[in-house]
């Protein structure tokens, strides 16, 4: 067998690889979308927590009213 000739198996792999290979504009687009999604993730989680009554931005104090005698 000529080692330079691709086997049926490696040809299928190359075809598969080509199918999943993104063009540069596609890669840029995906990169942009993923960056935006990851950037929005903390705000999304905070909004979800707020909607669920879970409170505040992670790391912030909760509102904790005191009951101390001042007078």
């Amino acid at each position, binding site marked *: 067998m000529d080692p330079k000739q691709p086997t049926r198996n490696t040809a299928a792999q190359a075809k598969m690889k080509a199918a999943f290979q993104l063009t540069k504009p596609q890669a840029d687009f995906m990169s942009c979308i993923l960056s935006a999604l990851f950037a929005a993730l903390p705000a999304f989680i905070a909004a979800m927590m707020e909607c669920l009554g879970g409170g505040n931005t992670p790391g912030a104090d909760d509102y*904790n009213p005191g009951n101390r005698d001042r007078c």
Partner: protein
Amino acid sequence: MTTVLQQIALFRLVADNHHVAAAWLDHAHNPPTLRVLTTAPPYNEHLAILTNGDILPLNLPPQLQDFPFHLKRVAPFHDLRLKLPLGAPLNANQDCQNEPVHMGTQLQPAGAGWVGTAGLPVKWADSAGKLHWGILSNWHVMCLNGATQGHPQHQPTDAKPAIALLADWNSVSSVETNYLDAAIADAYLDGFHTISPDIIGIGPFGDHPIDAAVGLQVTKSGRTTGRTTAKCSAVGATVKVGYGDFTAIFSAQDVFQDTASAFSAAGDSGSCILGASCLCPCALLFAGGGDLTIGCPIRYAIDRFNLVFPFP
């Protein structure tokens, strides 16, 4: 809608005429009318005032010369903090409170020679996104000369423990146009927030801010006059306010007129003006004179301090 050029012209009208206390374009009238409040007797035929029997025309910028006008005499406007000494407490707004302290209460910065009102419980996000809970009041109530972060704010006077520490402020200029006289103080002390979500005589307030509009019925709870009501008589007004040792000019302010008893008096500075029906914050009371009260639109404070609603 008053244009930017017209706002600049209104500033010039108020700044260049000693006897003009306020001016605005009344768009509720057709055609829009230039309304001018003067501290001297008005002479409406020629947009002038009377001084010592003489007719003194007002210096009117060209951008305002085509509008029909109406002049009205008023008392000069001044800030509404109350200078010491104080008498005995006369209402619940002046009494000492245990925690959690309701807003609308008397407030004194440590060492200040005056008191004002802690107007509204507010929540804000700092530059790192961390939330804080504290008090919204006026710059001229919470800040001494050379204000520093962390300056203690006491209720009802500095003879009692502090309830908040000065966090941020928007100071007032005597040379540039102003939009906001406000400051915030963080009420988180020793592991607890000292303040309640309620306002004295009102209870919980509305969960969203609103803009004032001419005719809007409003209410407030303040240190001196307690809970009172008024009606919005102008928005977008340019106003001259005396601060004792200097005078400042504010643009785009809300004006409120007494409907029954006096809406405000010295000591009520810092009160939050709420729409009477929804109890939604609409302005921050900071000045007045005669039967008129001046408030900064609450949206300026929201933008300046990143306030977040609803509270808490």
